């Protein structure tokens, strides 16, 4: 899905199965599940090369990646390096936004030991739980995912005991039984927020996917591996009350000649946020979560 040039097999396989199944009965021996098994084998092989969450790398590693590439991108990376020192890559498996958010958020808590923030987000998590219940989700389908997220919060800010080490946070983020559960927790929260405020999200979803809110949540939010877009980011940021900055690295350039790097701040619209500090024109928000977006993929950025 993400990094499309790395998995050229997928579209061809699908369409040929589709057409041939009508024409040639032999093709019915090749089941969707076989095709998907093969596809996921290709993905897993590919994914094994990179962990869910990578090591922190200096921004120069990004520059090296585009050495012989577009001059606009190299120019932008130079601009980027004035404000950002490092990048942490995440696996391009369709969950990169949620995975980046997870690591970035937990790492921030671990380093800041911001007890008030943990209390605040726990209140929002409880609201999200009520939202899902109100929407008719059965508790047992989501409670494990909620519990695991709370467990992660409590391991980075422990109160009396020492919190987990930074290395342990990295290990957990690479452990599928933790990492995928937290990603799924975010997917539940995102879906719940979109469904709860369906009137607000409807036009964005229609523009993005030409589908109903219900279809969109079912096919593009709740299944693992479905990529995120601004709708997901807005919903997650609103639901948890956490601002997110997304820095865009693409080939677009402005007419004025000078190269600049655009960013967009997703600022929670919910009542929990201190309106005075976010909406007054004078003070800028400064989200502690900064993600680098390159078309189709999100990674984590570190400020200087």
């Amino acid at each position, binding site marked *: 899905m993400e990094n499309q040039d790395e998995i050229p097999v997928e579209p061809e396989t699908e369409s040929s199965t589709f057409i041939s199944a009508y024409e040639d009965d032999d093709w*019915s021996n090749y*089941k969707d599940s076989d095709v998907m098994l093969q596809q996921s084998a290709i993905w897993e092989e590919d994914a094994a090369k990179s962990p869910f969450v990578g090591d922190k790398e200096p921004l120069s590693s990004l520059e090296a990646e585009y050495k012989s590439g577009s001059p606009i991108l190299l120019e932008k990376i130079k601009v980027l390096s004035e404000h950002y020192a490092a990048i942490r890559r995440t696996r391009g498996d369709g969950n990169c936004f949620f995975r980046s958010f997870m690591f970035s958020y937990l790492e921030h808590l671990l380093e800041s030991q911001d007890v008030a923030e943990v209390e605040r987000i726990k209140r929002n998590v409880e609201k999200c739980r009520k939202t899902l219940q109100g929407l008719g989700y059965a508790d047992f389908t*989501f409670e494990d995912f909620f519990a695991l997220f709370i467990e992660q919060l409590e391991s980075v800010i422990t109160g009396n005991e020492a919190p987990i080490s930074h290395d342990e946070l990295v290990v957990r983020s690479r452990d599928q039984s933790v990492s995928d559960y937290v990603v799924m927790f975010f*997917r539940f929260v995102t879906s719940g927020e979109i469904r709860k405020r369906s009137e607000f999200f409807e036009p964005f979803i229609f523009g993005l996917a030409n589908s109903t809110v219900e279809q969109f949540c079912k096919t593009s939010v709740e299944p693992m591996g479905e990529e995120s877009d601004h709708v997901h980011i807005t919903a997650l940021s609103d639901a948890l009350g956490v601002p997110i900055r997304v820095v865009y690295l693409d080939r677009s350039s402005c007419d004025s000649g000078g190269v600049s790097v655009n960013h967009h701040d997703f600022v929670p619209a919910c009542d929990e946020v201190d309106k005075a500090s976010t909406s007054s024109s004078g003070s800028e928000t400064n989200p502690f979560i900064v993600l680098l977006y390159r078309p189709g993929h999100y990674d984590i950025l570190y400020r200087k």
Partner: protein
Amino acid sequence: MSTPARKRLMRDFKRLQQDPPAGISGAPQDNNIMLWNAVIFGPDDSPWDGGTFKLALQYSEDYPNKAPTVRFVSRMFHPNIYADGSICLDILQNQWSPIYDVAAILTSIQSLLCDPNPNSPANSEAARAFSENKREYNRRVREIVEQSWNAD
């Protein structure tokens, strides 16, 4: 041994017992909660009416992050069901999500019976009959319904 997958399956089972949706039933095998047997009743007012179709659901320790493998044990004639009983249904493949419990899976399969997806044919003969010769299609389905009463 109680793993997250097994604990979740216990809750799936409890929910299915307390609040069973119409026209489906299912239970884990006595000694193995990872392997379920289920029955779907053909929906009323459809050619499937009266049929009792048996299925097997195999769960892995990756549940609920991965879908179970679901297969019809009864013989079927349906555009999205393969000769070996496996089912072409998005939520069992790339659209899987942990929100689907056993009841939701079986309910989705039940509605697939009357509402085939012609874009992903698994049985080309059934797909062709469904789109080109509804009478023949309905006749073949009625045959399958009758067979479902006799099979073990």
